[in-house]
Every structure is written in structure tokens, then in C-alpha cells.
């Protein structure tokens, strides 16, 4: 699988990352190197092997339905670029 320039720009957009025009080619090369490396897996015969969705063998640990955290708006908002009336404030996200 080869990544073209258009795909690099599309992934950058979806990830909200800015890639300068002159860096696009480098990024494209890096993507392709990574993908080629992962492509090696295709050499392994995986017939009759269940797809693996987690390498974590531990069973899922659930918790009880108890309220522990909260009442800490000041801490939650500590990193907000702008805060007003206890809300995060961002540039308008609808038209």
C-alpha cells in the first residue's frame, strides 16, 4: 500500500495537524516506510486465525456504580484557554 500526497493531507486534516507544504513529501515517505514495515505481517499465513483486537490478556475489570469524583470545576477548567461563568469558551463552532 502506497500513500499519496492527497492521503497525507487528508489524514493531516482529520487529525487537525498542520503539515507545511514543503514537509508533505517527507511525511509521505515516513508513512510509506512505516506501512512497508508493517506490511511484512502479510507474509505470515493467518488462515484460521481469529482477528486480534487486543494484546491485553487481562480480563475487563468493572467498577461499582458509585460517584467519587466531581465538584472540581476549578481544576477541570485550569487549562482552559478561556473560561467564563464556569464554562470552557471556544471560538464559535457553528455557522
Amino acid at each position, binding site marked *: 500500500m502506497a500513500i499519496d500526497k492527497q492521503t497525507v493531507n487528508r489524514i493531516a486534516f482529520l487529525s487537525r495537524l498542520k503539515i507545511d507544504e514543503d514537509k508533505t513529501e517527507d511525511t509521505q515517505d515516513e508513512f510509506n516506510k512505516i506501512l512497508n514495515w508493517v506490511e511484512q505481517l502479510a507474509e505470515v499465513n493467518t488462515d484460521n486465525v481469529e482477528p486480534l483486537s487486543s494484546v491485553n490478556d487481562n480480563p475487563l475489570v468493572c467498577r461499582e456504580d458509585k460517584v467519587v*469524583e466531581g465538584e472540581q470545576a476549578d481544576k477541570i477548567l485550569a487549562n482552559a484557554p478561556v473560561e467564563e461563568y464556569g*464554562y470552557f469558551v471556544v471560538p464559535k463552532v457553528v455557522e
Partner: protein
Amino acid sequence: MIIEGKTNKWEIVCGLEIHCQIISKSKIFSTASTKFGADANQNVSFVDAGMPGMLPTLNKYCVHQAVKTGLGLRAVINKYSEFSRKNYFYADMPTGYQITQFQYPIVGEGIVTIDLDDGTTKDIRIERMHIEQDAGKSIHDIDPHKTFIDLNRAGVGLMEIVTKPDFRSPEEAGAFLRKLRSILRYLETCDGNMDEGSMRCDVNVSVRPLGSDEFRTRCEMKNVNSVKFVMQAIENEARRHVEVYENGGKVEQETRQFDAVSGQTKAMRKKEFAHDYRYFPEPDLPPLILTDEYIKQVADELPELPDAKKARFVNELGLTKYDAAVICENKEVAYFFEKAAVGHDAKKVANWLMGDFFAMLKCKNLTIDESPVSAENLGKLVDLIEKNVISGKIAKDVFEIMSETGEEPEKIVEEKGWKQVTDSSAIEAIVDKVIANNADKVAAYKGGKTGLMGWFVGQVIKESQGKANPKMVNDLVVKKLS
């Protein structure tokens, strides 16, 4: 519903996706409270805020609620399910992804039976149901240039129920939403309030020529927030498709916005790559494994659901289908009715409940739980009529006092001296008096004006201040005038 176009007859094909907030104390992956109406950002944990390094832990009770709901939808419970990340950027979702289920949902195919106005039923197939986290709330109308974000809702558990495209009319979709809400409320897994956003509906609509079984391009309307609006959105969107096709056009697959004021749908600004969510298995949560034993345990907790209750009310208590349906739609009403009906004439209790009782609640603007008239006392009132202690007419006066004071009907009847007169000699005396005082009417009656019969009965009852037993009066008047 069939839409008559200019050149063709068209059929609606519609499916729904419903997001239902899970009733639980804490959020699905964090220990912050789910309570509605707190001050902004007070019910937020560092997990919900997307702080680096914070890990989600699954709330057991949310799983329990989802399994319970799945069983209530007569659906397959999947013993193996997985969580996935759905990636997209939006200001009210700090992590940049939603933890949801994609390929392996917790609940598979099921069935909800809906009741239609003509008395028939239809089975609507459920495609799947998965659990996921809700996003925060964006408030756009405080400032013209800013959006305000409250993360209190971020991380509250949701169940997303997806139906097959089985709806052929707006009415069917409306009946489904009402039935689903009723089931969820019986189960106590979601409070089902569309106006508060605890149940939200996405509507998918397409049309096809009547008789065809193809599926054409569909459009989606997101977050339509009442049953009425869902029905309007379906009808108007379907009519728009018919118009496009009949004018030789092509329907574009898109998300459209329903405008509650005009009732129409309009195209939203095209979102680039809107559907490129790049799902992948959630690395922070291993798969969710359930056992048969666990599922059985949840099944044993299921309450009697509205359809079963309705059938029992019809078959065992002799209610009409219509009455049973009205009473069973709302869990609180059904429980109240059962309490009132036990040991009494259930049909008469149903009549009182749906007549004077509902009218009283409406007039006083009370919920059934706040009713001044208890279920037991309503049952007793019906008993007093059945046992001829009071007439139906007097019962209305008794009921009025009950709804003011909450007193027992026997006590009111006793204190007011409203006991029905069933002593035939006492009634006979009144009948004689009325006959003696109205010789002209007697003559007219005997001359053939038999319609006066009712007038005599009325006079006797009036004379007795409403207390004479109407049937006895009737019999005596007939006897005396013949």
C-alpha cells in the same frame, strides 16, 4: 402511508436510531455524577475531561442496564462484545474520540411490537443496540462569536438502539417511539424524556415506487426531539424525495436538519469527510464477556412489560383492548390501576380511572403519584356503587370530595347521609306521592305518552335527593303505572 405523486405511487422506507441515556448514578467510564442540572463542569472527572493518562473503567451497572434493555427488546444478548474508538474532533468531546461499540455490540437483533390505530399490531425489527459515552453540551446562543462548553454530560452512558428500515408511515414510527419509551420506563433503564434530551432520535428516510423492494438513497435527520417532529420529518422528507424523483432528479445522501418551525428539512453545510471515523478497538478496555448465568440473572429481574400486562388485563380482567392499551402505556398508571382493581370490578375501575380520575388529575395538574385519591379508595368507591350503597350519580359527588380531602368514600357517604335508599316501602311512598301530585301526567301516560316514564323516574329520584336506587325506582314506577 402511500404518497400519490404526479406519475407514480410511492412507499416510505424509514429506520430510526435512538440514543437513550442510561439511568445510573455515575458515568459509564468515570466516577463523576450523571445528575442533571448541576452547575457547569461540576460533574466532571479527569477521565471525562480527556486529561492525558486517565483511563476509563467500565461501570458494571451500565452493563446491567443494557442487558436488561436488550432483554426487554426481545433481543439476542451477545456474550462477547468490544469497545471501539470513533474518532472525530468536536469542541464538546475533549478526547477527540468517543468510546463506543462498533463491530461487536452488546445486543443483537430483537423485536418491538407496535400497536396501530386500526387495532392491528406490527413487529418492528431491531438491528442492534450498543453502549457508548455521551458528549458534552455546546451552547451557541450566549455570544455571537463564542461557543460555551459544559462537560457535565460528557461520559454519561448511552444505549444506541438501531432499527431495521421497517417503518412504512410516520404513524408507525410514532407508535414505535411511544412503545419504546414505555418499555424503557417499565425497565427503569432510561427515563425516555425526549424534551430533556434523555432520549434522542435520528431519522433515516427514503422512498421507493409502491410494490418495489429496492432501497434508494436515504437522508438522515439528526436529533429530532419529539414524537410529533419525528413524524413530521418523515412525511415531509419523503414528499421531498418523491418530488425530486418525479422531476427527474437524484436524491443526494446527506444529513439534513429538521426545522421545527416550518416542519421542513434543509441541507446542512457539507461536512468534509464527515463519516471518516477511523474506528479501531479501544486499547484501554479489554473485550466485555458475559456469562449465561449473568444473563439469566438479569432476565429474572425483568418486570412484566407493557404488552404482557395489556394481554393479561384483557384476558383476565375483561378490559377492552383500547382501555388496556391506554392504562398500560404508562407504568405508574398500570400499577395504580392494578392496586385499585384488586378485589373489585376491574372494568368499572378502568372506566372511573380513565374518566373522572384522569380528568381530576388534569384539572389539578397532578401526576398520578401525587393523586389525592388513593388506588385503594378508588376501588372502594367502585365497590360502593356495585353493592348499591350509592348510585353512580352520588358517586360523582363522593369522588369530588375525595379529590379534595383524600378521605375514604365510606366515611364521606356516612357523614353526608348519602346512603342509597333501598328500602322498597320508602321508595314506594315517594312513588305514590309523585303519582298523586301529577294526575295529569298519569292520565297522559295512560293515554299513550309512554315517554313520560323517564320523567316519573326522574321525579322520584329528585324527590329522594338522589338517594333512591334507580333500578328499584324504575321497577316500582312501571308497576304503579300499569
